[in-house]
């Protein structure tokens, strides 16, 4: 049975690096019987694509990580709400988006990317996506970024491109 981890621990974790990806993984639940930890992992990584106006950009995304400490279960990540919900205690679920917001803020302040790209997973309803991503957009805006482009990608997924205004010297 997955039980919530004390919320006071959430600020105690540092940004980690995996190659050029920076991420924050915040544990939210623990199962003592199966020795598994459930974490909210938020990531930012650099990429290049000629279809993005500036070419070079950073992409941000979040996922739920289920990790077995003793190797008894295969560790995995998921962005699928229907999968994740089985591992997240009900009492913790409302706080997940707040954890992602805090993590995004810390990652943006750490990496200071010029351009940030985010996309909503297909299958998410616009209404649900709006609630979450309006919050995330506001967090990034509060760090000095402005929406440069938004719309639907080739797969019909809602995306945002946000840029940090360039400061002209003199």
């Amino acid at each position: 049975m997955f039980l919530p981890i004390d919320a006071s621990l959430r600020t105690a974790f540092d940004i980690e690096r995996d190659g050029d990806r920076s991420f924050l993984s915040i544990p939210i639940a623990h199962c003592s019987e199966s020795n598994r930890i459930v974490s909210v992992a938020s990531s930012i990584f650099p990429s290049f694509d000629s279809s993005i106006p500036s070419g070079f950009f950073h992409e941000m995304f979040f996922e739920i990580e289920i990790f077995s400490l003793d190797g008894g279960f295969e560790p995995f990540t998921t962005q699928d709400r229907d999968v994740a919900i089985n591992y997240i205690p009900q009492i913790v679920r409302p706080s997940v988006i707040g954890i992602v917001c805090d993590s995004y803020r810390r990652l943006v302040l750490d990496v200071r990317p010029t351009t940030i790209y985010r996309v909503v997973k297909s299958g998410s309803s616009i209404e649900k996506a709006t609630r979450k991503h309006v919050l995330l957009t506001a967090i990034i805006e509060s760090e000095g970024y402005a929406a440069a482009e938004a719309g639907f990608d080739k797969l019909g997924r809602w995306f945002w491109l946000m840029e940090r205004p360039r400061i002209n010297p003199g």
Partner: protein
Amino acid sequence: METGCSNYPSSGDRKVTALKKPDASQYVSRAIYSGKRPMSAAQVASRIASLKTAVSKIAIQASTNEGLSGKKALEPVSH
């Protein structure tokens, strides 16, 4: 009459390709996926150290909570 630039096609043969304007809607993220994604061995190895830290912090928190409940047990009880 030869001009010495015979490798160049005449202007009538030139194909003018307009530069494509960048359009973010054409980009398809590879960071988004469905279902479960297994973690690679490298990912697992890198996560073990930090999760051990997490577990130790959780253990400390649990013992602190026990300590707090111990304190409460020592609080004077009004009769």
